[in-house]
């Protein structure tokens, strides 16, 4: 088992940065071509007018999750060497709620604002400046909120670990949920 390649020392930092640019190019291309540089499409889901965001997002999640766990099961990828997103229950609930509010107001999120700006949108540049300012406000207030920031830490735990079930049970559940969701979205979009 030799993957993740960087984690197993197949190349150094400079090569990893070159690969970051290349992977980023594909990231940006698919975001823009999927319509995720457009604030009207980005906010559509919250008004039930355009379901592009959940369609792109959950398709991407299913493809990447299936590949990740398949490669892991085939022993082609050492998932213990993959950095797993940590869970902090209450900070991520509060952060998610605030983030969703900011998403609808601005019409962007950090990655899609860059895609919006790259397609010529100056309002996206305003949102980008706001995101920088929000980070600064966080850093200034950090001493007062540090207690909450580290509160309810759950570690880098996954849903299959938490539920003590095989990851493919979770995957099948997600396939079924996504199929039902995509079906309803297509029907809803056709009607309106």
């Amino acid at each position: 088992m030799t993957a993740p390649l960087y984690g197993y020392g197949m190349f150094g930092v400079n090569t990893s940065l070159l690969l970051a640019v290349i992977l980023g190019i594909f990231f940006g291309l698919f975001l823009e071509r999927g319509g995720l540089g457009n604030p009207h499409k980005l906010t559509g889901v919250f008004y039930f007018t355009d379901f592009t965001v959940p369609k792109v997002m959950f398709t991407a999640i299913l493809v990447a999750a299936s590949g990740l766990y398949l490669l892991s099961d085939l022993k082609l990828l050492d998932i213990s060497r993959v950095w797993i997103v940590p869970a902090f229950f209450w900070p991520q609930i509060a952060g998610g709620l605030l983030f969703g509010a900011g998403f609808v107001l601005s019409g962007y999120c950090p990655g899609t604002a860059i895609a919006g700006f790259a397609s010529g949108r100056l309002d996206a540049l305003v949102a980008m400046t706001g995101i920088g300012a929000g980070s600064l406000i966080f850093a200034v207030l950090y001493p007062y909120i540090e207690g909450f920031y580290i509160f309810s830490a759950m570690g880098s735990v996954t849903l299959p670990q938490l539920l003590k079930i095989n990851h493919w049970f979770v995957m099948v559940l997600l396939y079924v949920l996504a199929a039902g969701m995509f079906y309803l979205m297509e029907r809803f979009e056709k009607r309106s």
Partner: protein
Amino acid sequence: MEKNNFWSPYIAGIGLGLTLLATFYIIGWGLGASSAYSLVTAVGLNEISPGYAGSLKYFSRYLTAGYPLKDWVLFEVTGLFIGALAGALLSGNFRVRFDKAEKMSSKKRLVTAATGGILIGFASRLSRGCTSGVALSGGAQLAAGGWIFVIAMFAGGFVVAALFRRLWS
């Protein structure tokens, strides 16, 4: 209005998912975005006022490295910009504009973009990342944190959309 020549969201989603999978396989972590803003803000502040930047405990994580801008996510979002620019140019979707809802004034759009951005910037730090690093990457890892954030984000968005019904119409 721009040409509606976007790809099928499912095709774009498959492409995005394969890019994310390649990132897991090649690098060993997912795609991100918001930390680049925090990093650039910290480095910028450090240029203007090193004393104040140094006094901010949260920003010290960025400033202790020898070359703070030699950061993986910063390079990745640079690629993101190039890829999105190429996509917009090649498809004829590139046009300089101040995008907003039809009936919204430019002044109001300035306020919503800036306020929304500030909320997002703050929330991303609290959540350990954004739609890219936590929702997409964490979601694909089946990470609990990713799914907690996804659910809360959609809940927050639906509440605000219900409060501001004509914001985007």
